[in-house]
């Protein structure tokens, strides 16, 4: 073969390889676009499922996320109806975005959502998404690297070895420094900068929220209810402390949108903020439930079951604890909580039966109900005794005292009832408030004199939960 021929062949091979590289590059580009689309779907699906209804009436004309999500849902749901794994998940009573968001919310559907992101049926919407991304009309975007590259062209951060992430880390060191200096007002903007640079900086969200909810409020006094101001955005009365709590909540929600598969963010929101700071058990349960839907540590479940119990969902809590006990037999607390919830279920059933009995006129049926209720009460007492003696949990003693006090109350022996409750509340400080409320209630019914603090508590209740600017009819929060 002559030299010229060989050169020609090599030239052809080189051009062919470059063209093949170009083709492969386009394939990778397509996958990256699909990836950005997929991550956006996860983010906006999370927004739709968890936050959209609770974020008041704030809407933005600048961003097109929710409208686009609506359109995507309308195309996606028919496709998902044909999928064996997802067709049963579609609830016809819900709207298409809600259905789609619920499917997105399940981590086991991630491969299906990914497949969906690459389908040609969604090609037009993908194009629209990318165009909106370039025009900076997308609010919930997780793939910041891709987005920035598309939107702003020359991306110096991406050039220099991923300095974006390290810049975020270095800025965080400043946040840490300001924290030790007590300069909270300087911390907050820097925290926001960190997560803007690196939306996957989970630690920033967690520690930032901790600073806002715990450290910033440590020295703040409680704002009296009537001095709090109504916030339509949060659908709640907001005082000084609450303002920081909601800042922390917003911060964590942003983190959740950008990292919808990280349990720590859901956990912090549910446990650290809603439960510990705001005593908002419904929301605590809500977000802890999300936390266990993604890969998580085992103690996350324990907190969920505790919050379920505190939210009055004893059946679910019991189920959870029994399951936990089976999975982790070495756990020392599971048995106690199984007993606690069992006891509460029995007490609850007894009360329900007694209420039903009051409404029944027929004596026989009434007595049957009462007998059933007494059986449940006996079972409950057995549980509390077991909890107290076998597990050494003083809660058992407290519940026994409570049941005894209620029995005395039902017999009209109010003073004895109050005495039992008083003893119980001092022996079980964690239940002080509950016992105190019962004492006030009994005293009021029995026209017994109230102590000064009891009178104050009554006055607080009379004032109610109203704050400044609160509408007459408070919109229902989801």
């Amino acid at each position, binding site marked *: 073969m002559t030299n010229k021929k*060989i*050169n020609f062949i*090599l030239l052809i*091979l*080189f051009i062919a*390889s*470059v063209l*093949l*590289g*170009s083709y*492969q*590059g*386009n394939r*990778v*580009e397509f*996958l*990256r676009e699909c*990836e950005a689309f*997929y*991550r956006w779907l996860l983010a906006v699906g999370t927004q739709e499922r968890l936050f959209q209804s609770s974020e008041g009436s704030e809407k933005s004309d600048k961003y097109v996320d929710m409208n686009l999500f609506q359109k995507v849902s309308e195309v996606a749901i028919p496709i998902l109806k044909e999928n064996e794994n997802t067709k049963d998940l579609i609830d016809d009573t819900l709207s298409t975005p809600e259905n789609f968001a619920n499917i997105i919310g399940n981590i086991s559907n*991630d*491969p299906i959502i*990914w497949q969906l992101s690459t389908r040609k049926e969604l090609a037009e919407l993908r194009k629209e998404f990318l165009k909106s991304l370039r025009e900076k009309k997308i609010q919930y975007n997780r793939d910041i*690297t*891709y987005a920035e*590259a*598309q939107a*702003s*062209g*020359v*991306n110096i951060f*991406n*050039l220099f*070895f*991923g*300095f974006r*992430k*390290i810049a*975020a*880390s270095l800025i*965080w*060191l400043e946040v*840490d420094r300001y924290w030790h200096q007590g300069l909270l007002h300087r911390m907050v903007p820097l925290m926001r900068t960190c997560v803007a640079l690196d939306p*996957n900086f989970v*630690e920033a969200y*967690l*520690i930032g929220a*901790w600073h806002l909810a*715990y450290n910033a409020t440590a020295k703040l006094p409680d704002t009296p209810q009537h001095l709090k101001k109504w916030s339509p955005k949060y659908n709640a009365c907001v005082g000084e402390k609450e303002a920081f709590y909601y800042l922390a909540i917003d911060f964590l929600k942003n983190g959740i949108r950008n*990292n919808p*598969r*990280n349990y*720590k963010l859901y*956990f*912090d929101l549910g*446990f*650290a903020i809603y439960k510990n700071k705001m005593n908002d058990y419904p929301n605590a349960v809500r977000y802890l439930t999300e936390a266990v839907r*993604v890969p998580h*540590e085992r103690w996350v479940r324990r*907190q969920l079951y505790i919050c379920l119990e505190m939210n009055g969902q004893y059946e679910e809590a019991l189920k959870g604890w029994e399951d936990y006990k089976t999975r982790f037999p070495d756990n020392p607390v599971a048995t106690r909580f199984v007993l606690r919830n069992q006891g509460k279920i029995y007490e609850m059933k007894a009360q329900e039966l007694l209420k039903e009995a009051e409404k029944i006129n027929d004596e026989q049926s009434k007595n049957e109900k009462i007998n059933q209720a007494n059986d449940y009460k006996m079972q409950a007492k057995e549980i509390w005794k077991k909890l107290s003696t076998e597990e050494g949990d003083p809660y058992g003693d407290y519940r026994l005292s409570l049941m005894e006090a209620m029995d005395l109350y039902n017999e009209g022996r109010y003073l004895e009832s109050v005495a039992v409750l008083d003893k119980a509340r001092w022996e079980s400080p964690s239940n002080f408030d509950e016992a105190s409320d019962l004492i006030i209630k009994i005293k009021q019914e029995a026209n017994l004199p109230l102590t000064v603090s009891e009178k104050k508590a009554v006055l607080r209740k009379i004032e109610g939960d109203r704050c400044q600017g609160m509408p007459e009819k408070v919109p229902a929060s989801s």
Partner: protein
Amino acid sequence: MKTLLDSIKGPWFIAVYTWREGLRRKTLVGFLILSLLVIFGATFMTSFINQATVGDVTTDMSLRLIKDICVTAISIFGVLITIFISASVIPTEIENHVIYTVLSKPVRRYQYLLGKFLGAQLIIIMNLCLMGGLFFIALYIKQRILPTLLLWSVFLTYFEFLIVSALTFAIACASSSSVLPTIAGLFIYITGSLTEYLKDVYNRSGQTGEWFDSLVGYIAYILWNVLPNLQRFSLKTKILELQPNDPPTDVLIPQLVLYGLIYAASGYILAYWIFRKREV
């Protein structure tokens, strides 16, 4: 089969010889020691940062900093080592005339070139393994679980470097000293990282309606398509924060590997085309 084996043996021996030669280079050893110091230093420096515990969640900022610093160190030193070694394997041997005694042996030029290229890759892989290994140990000590995602990150980093290495190697085949290919290698890396900009030029073109504007846009589009785009390997840093079994990652990794291999092949073809009739 025997012929195939025979044709692989020569390049393999040259590759091993190149690798051994590379191990003895002071500059390479210097880069490696620096990178290991940075990785070790990151672990040490960040140990003063306290952990924060909220509820039961322990947030370890030092772990985050170790990851960031180490990934950056591997990127910086890794690319410098890649460029340096790819730029010097051929020109050094031409400069010191050792190539005479090798090419006079029954080794065809493509085999020689393949051997030198593979030898350079062995050095790059060894360096990445050392840096990645130390990073792996540092993370394992910190978080007590095997950071398997780190392995994928280092794996992808190699294929990014493979593209830079192949193109630098091709330029080195035309040069008699390693200075020009080194500068070219840096240029290739910077250009590869800025290729995304060309797409932006294309997207913004045509707005004025001028023919020249549209022409620039088309040229930018063609270049964006044809030139290797190292931005596509940004997954290597993202992957450390992702969950395992992330669907796009599972699909992107093999595609990126293929992308790297194709451009490496085109770099090698170019290298052979240049070197085939090069007079030494």
